[in-house]
């Protein structure tokens, strides 16, 4: 077993643990902190189903963003949608036998072109961050670095078209990690770079603004029903004030 394989294999376990345990812990925290008052923003749905529809539209179409900043919406949506397509394409490395729909030509091709779309979106966001004075003002170094990190992931992934690696061996490595019977990771520079950056992203996820992903679902302005007059909505700590 090569040193590279051992390092990357261990890092994979470590990053996966941080990512999933970290997000699970955040979700636990968000879910257990009470929301003591009804604060939905209009148009606030009256039913749980209405809330589900609202969140669906926010998550899938970025509806609020569409109404507030068209360019940010365009670049942001392109990036996120491309991310999803790329994720589908990559499932072929982690499923064995490959899920039937993952091997469809359209899924694989879309996943490939998604890399360009992703780069377009990310560079658009970066340009906006640098050139719009209001956005530049609020940007911390980490805001640029996260964009650059993901641009790095997209670019290194795309470059593997020209610096190919042994895909079969790569898949053996991934499947080996999943079933705890390790095999060698091809040590091509572009692949190692690509994987390394992905691992870094996984590790910082639960400690950064990437928490917006679970956060959106817990946003009281978006996930509450407008039923304040129908029933009391009292938190445990607030009930204590009543005695």
């Amino acid at each position, binding site marked *: 077993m090569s040193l590279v394989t051992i390092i990357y294999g261990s890092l994979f376990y470590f990053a996966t643990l941080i990512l999933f345990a970290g997000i699970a812990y*955040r979700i636990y*925290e*968000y879910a257990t*902190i*009470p*929301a*003591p*008052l*009804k*604060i939905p*923003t*209009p*148009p*606030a*749905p*009256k039913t749980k189903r209405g809330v589900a529809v609202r969140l669906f539209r*926010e998550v899938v179409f*970025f509806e*609020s*963003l569409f109404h*507030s*900043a068209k360019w*940010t919406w365009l670049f*942001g949506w392109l990036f996120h949608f491309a991310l999803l397509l790329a994720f589908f394409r990559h499932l072929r490395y982690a499923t064995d036998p490959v899920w039937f729909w993952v091997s469809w030509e359209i899924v694989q091709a879309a996943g490939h072109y998604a890399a360009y779309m992703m780069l377009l979106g990310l560079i658009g966001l970066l340009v*906006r*961050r640098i050139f*719009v*004075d*209001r*956005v530049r*003002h*609020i*940007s*911390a*170094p*980490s*805001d640029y670095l996260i964009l650059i990190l993901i641009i790095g992931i997209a670019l290194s992934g795309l470059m593997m078209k020209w610096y190919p690696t042994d895909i079969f061996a790569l898949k053996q490595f991934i499947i080996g990690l999943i079933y705890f019977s390790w095999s060698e990771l091809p040590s091509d520079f572009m692949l190692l770079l690509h994987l390394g950056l992905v691992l870094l992203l996984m590790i*910082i996820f639960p*400690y*950064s*603004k990437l*928490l*917006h992903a679970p*956060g*959106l679902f*817990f*946003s*009281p*302005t*978006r996930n509450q029903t*407008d039923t*304040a*007059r129908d*029933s*009391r*909505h*009292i*938190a445990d700590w*607030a009930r204590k*004030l009543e005695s």
Partner: protein
Amino acid sequence: MAVKEFEKPELKEYSDVPLLEKKATAHLAPFKSKEEFQSSLGYPGELVDNWQDAALDKMGDLLKKYRSLRVYLDSCIQCGACTDKCHYYLGTKDPSNMPVGRQNLLRSVYRRYFTLPGKYFPKLVGAVDLTKEVLDDWYSYYHQCSQCRRCAVFCPMGIDTAEISMAAREIMDSVGVGQKYCNEIIGKVHKIGNNLGLPEPALADTLEGLEEDVKDETDIDVKYPLDQKDSDILLVTPSADFFAEPHVDGLIGYGKVFHQAGLSWTLSSHASEAANFGMFIGSYANMRKLAMRIREAALDLNVKRIVFGECGHAWRVAYSFLNTLAGPFDFLDPKYPVPQHICEVTYDLIQKNVLQFDKSANDDMVVTYHDSCNVARASNMGDVIGGQFTIPRDIIKATTNHFYDMDESTIKEKTFCCGGGGGLLTDDLMELRMKGALPRMEALKRVVDDYGVTHMAAICAICKSQFSKALGYYGFEIDQIISLHQLVGNALIMNKKEL
């Protein structure tokens, strides 16, 4: 107090987003609350010695009590979509008045003390130590937010800067730095029953005077009852309605509606104030205490329904919080929602053909409608989505012949704040108030120019007071702001019940 000299913003045909000017309004901070008012609210009288630790403790405490605070501090992607949505940014150009800029004042401290990267790599993630300068910035800029929630509507994560401002004010109060205007007023309500410190005999006098005025005008005995036990309806209205212009014309209108519909109603001297400034300072405990007066009055007067007069934030507290804070209201008539807005009452009566109008009585006016933020973005009316937008407009259309809405991007859920909400309606913030009114004034100017609009109706006591100042400042007439129920009162066809 006269408006101090400051550069007057220009009213433009189409509003544009200004380039930012750092620290443009850092100097704007309201007067601080004195010791006696702080302590009557349960806060230290002046900045405590170990204020840093105390503030961080309080922040930690609030982070466990309010999901909104925690999720919003974590979830901002610094995308900038909100940066041009705040009327205070548009009016002052100060980047700390961009909603995200305002949030970041607290977020950077949260990151420093409550997150891993902020503890170890503060520079990288924009985390800062809680210093006296930071506290001063908090005091300035969290009192330059009217908690209007316009940013929350536009933010892709639904981040509500009002929640952050409220938390920040609560933290500051807890270390002894409170705002004079809000805290004095809350003290008055606790002591006397209303924001103005108007005691029961004075209130009774005022209402009697009102009855005489209406009698002179209409020759009808419209009553404005106080503390009348066993009435059907308890009306809770902002105390400005008792004497301020144009508020009082609204109160006259409510009385006429009740009279004409034959409803028995009363005001209460115990709950002679709809306003609840406990919300502005982010204090659940104070907000609850103020809300309890209304429950007590309802029980004491043995009423069947509670109705609120025209007041924006009061309606937020009433519609969205009252049941939670002071419920359950199972002793009231279950046929009616608790509480109801006066507009809901009037609207229902119009639907049932109980009220008839002579619209020509308002023919001297071409009317537009200002959606007050707390009604538009933090509550509802009727039982349909968007009732808070349609019901007031339908009432206006039923009572006037000439109505025009302002630009779509400045009304309904996108409405611009008057510039004086959230506990900022004080003379020591006049510069901020006038600058913050700019986007609304620009939208108004457009309908004045395009449709000859002469009057703007509102259903919020704060909006009405604020516009009385801002209209004059921007070259309109100060009486161009009117109460919605003034239109109702003008046009209502009254017949003498006793005949």
